[in-house]
């Protein structure tokens, strides 16, 4: 943690949807991003959450990566 600032350590933002809400729509969030749309406009609470929750962010990055590599073409 030696190079971190306080903003990094203490970052919070109102409107955080939490882990469970994000899990439910993570596939939609990923497909919006892959389609070039703005998922934060549709799911703002999850966008906030993914910035702050390391576990959900890792899952999301994995899902986007998998959908990009092994997904069917956009429908």
């Amino acid at each position, binding site marked *: *943690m*030696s*190079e971190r600032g*306080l*903003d*990094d*350590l*203490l*970052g*919070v*933002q*109102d*409107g*955080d*949807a*939490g*882990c*469970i*809400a*994000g*899990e*439910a*729509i*993570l*596939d*939609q969030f*990923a*497909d919006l991003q*892959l389609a070039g749309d703005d998922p934060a406009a*549709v*799911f703002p*609470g*999850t966008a*906030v959450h993914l*910035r*702050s*929750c*390391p*576990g*959900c962010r*890792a*899952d999301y990055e*994995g*899902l986007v*990566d*998998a*959908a990009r*590599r*092994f*997904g*069917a*073409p*956009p*429908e």
Partner: protein
Amino acid sequence: MTAMAPSVSSGESSAPAARAVGSDTQHWVEGLRSSSPHFRRTTAELHALLLRVARYELGRRRHALGSIGGPELDDLAQQSASDAMLSILSKLEEFRGASRFTTWAYKFVIFDVSAKVAGHAWRHHRPEEEPAWEQVPDAFAAQPVQSAERREQLTVLSQAINSELTDRQRQVFVAVALNDVSIDVLALKLGSNRNALYKNLFDARRKLRACLAAAGYPLPAEEVSS
């Protein structure tokens, strides 16, 4: 979803309307119904895809798996693909076509790999006890240039970690925010879950920000990690 804090929203219920179902999604949904004449072929096809995703995702998270060998890694991938397949078949009727079927299906294998990696890490590479919170200012002090104001900020932060956080908030904040312990591994250690620990982390951060503000060191309201 679980309510987190007064300023945390209660969920993301504004899902977009289901899109027109494409031929690929239709292929999966119809073929995976137990009454389908193509059920066996379609499940085998999906399992093969899930296995590829599981292997890839395990590779992506390799750093958390220590010295696990090839056969053991592949066994983990097989387990994740099979467990995800069971989840997908049991939830098939819940799929509304709001995303591509494959993206929806991959979500289950990603979650399963995530949980299995945390379980493996917990069983085989348990994190050492975190440094005590008293070491927080020392770690910051390692930075070469520090103003007197910065040092005072860190003293306030250190005192607030000690006096304002609950034991659980302190434990989670020190482990996850300060020491980069995986939130899922910590959840296993504490017999909890990611969502509950995230709420602890969120509440701890808000308390600490409030303490800094009360001491004359407010952080910008919109300041978030990115």
